[in-house]
């Protein structure tokens, strides 16, 4: 990592750790601020309807389709980031 993470150009964004990007997407979808790595989507006020929006946004912005069942086993920011990273790695591995 180089320097503090900030929203910037797409290239800079994709260099930021997944957890930070997920936190930012939680903030955007739930319209809340200061989401931390140990925050849970539903404790922050998420619903099954806003979860649909979240998974759509993750697909659009991170290029990863998170299966619904995987999401409901990992609704915390850091946990969900692990799921996303695993999907990316899986894809990079040619699976």
């Amino acid at each position: 990592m180089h320097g503090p993470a900030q929203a910037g150009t797409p290239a800079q964004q994709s260099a930021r750790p997944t957890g930070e990007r997920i936190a930012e997407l939680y903030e955007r979808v739930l319209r809340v601020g200061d989401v931390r790595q140990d925050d849970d989507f539903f404790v922050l006020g998420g619903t099954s309807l806003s979860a649909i929006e979240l998974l759509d946004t993750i697909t659009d912005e991170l290029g990863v389709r998170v299966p619904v069942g995987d999401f409901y086993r990992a609704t915390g920011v850091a946990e969900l980031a692990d799921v996303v990273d695993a999907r990316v790695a899986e894809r990079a591995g040619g699976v």
Partner: protein
Amino acid sequence: MLLSTPPFAPVSFRDADLLDSAYYASGDPHALWAHLRENSPAHRCDPGDGREPFWVLTRYDDVHRVLRDHPTFSSRRGTMLCIIDLSMPDIASDDMMPDTDPPRHRQLREPLNRALTPRAVAGQEGSIRAQVRRLLQPALDGSVFDVAQAALMFPMAFTGTLMGLPSEHWPRMAELTTMTVAYDDPDYSTGSPTATVRQAHHELFDFFRTEVTRRPRTDPGTDLIGILRSMDLDEDPLSERQLMLNCYALLLGANVTTPHAVCTMVSMMGEQPEQFAKVRDNPELRERCVQEVLRWASPASHFMRYAVRDVELHGRLIRAGEPVSVWLGSANRDERVFTDPFRFDVTRHPNRHVAFGVGPHYCIGAGLATLALRILLDELLDLVEAVEPAGEVAHLASNFVAGYKRMPMRLLPRPGCRTDRAEAGR
């Protein structure tokens, strides 16, 4: 849920049992309801663990009154105890038909109702008969047949057809609707109860969003989703969210209830064959038999309302804002209204049961369900001579639905009945 009959063992219960899904799988709710009707007709139930206390009304007259008196008992904050059980606020207030009060309720209901009147659904008879034959066909070779599992797909098929849902999704959708009411049942739970409910909602809403998108507002078609797409609420089209919620309400209403009336019909045919012989010989009893199956099964156990103002009932004070649950299965066994209520009687008349509810939220699919059950009865009487239990019955763990998970039965074909007839219906 066990459909038990007296004499009942003395009842011991904790208030938390009324929320506990497991109680409905292995306990004896009819014994408890009989006790409450007699001893505590307005029972304040306090789970005792921080979850919201709620009222439990078990007598027929009180159930009737609460469901009709919508200015006093509102549907806007949700209508099922899962809200209290899981401490999950209702997200559909004022947007989903069951969670609205008149006059807003009427705006959502009327356009759908026109497509679901008994006269309108009569046109479905041929397609429902084909579904009934498809349901019974695997049973007619005399092998062990799980009525409960087969019945899950029955309402899905005719409701899926009316809604215009692609049939390749029906099995998953039927499973998801069951998850929403059996979130504590190990066969349906995906982990925690709340995660199970949320995942089921999420997947169903996703399906419905696709279906809504497929139907442009300019040319929505005539199926039920098309009707939702073309109607107005306060002079605006329904939002995507409102569309998803109301599709969900329609499918849930059909899917989680009807299968258990099907199971009850088949199991009562096994338990009391002489009654069904009487129905076979007297076709004029068929409508009454269907109504008695509905009373006996009472698949939706309760509905919930919130008191809008203070109300006194049986000497107790229900305060404004408190949740009030009314128990349909109990009302349908109320000794004050039904003669010999624990006797299954295909000749029962009058039979003013409340299995479909009562008042403005009376089940919008009642005409369709009654027709489907009537066709099922006709076909059973036509094709099946006798029904024999073939294994242990398992009950669904749900505080909302009085249901079955497994009901292994052997259906013995009638002599001279050609099972290929069922094949011809495919």
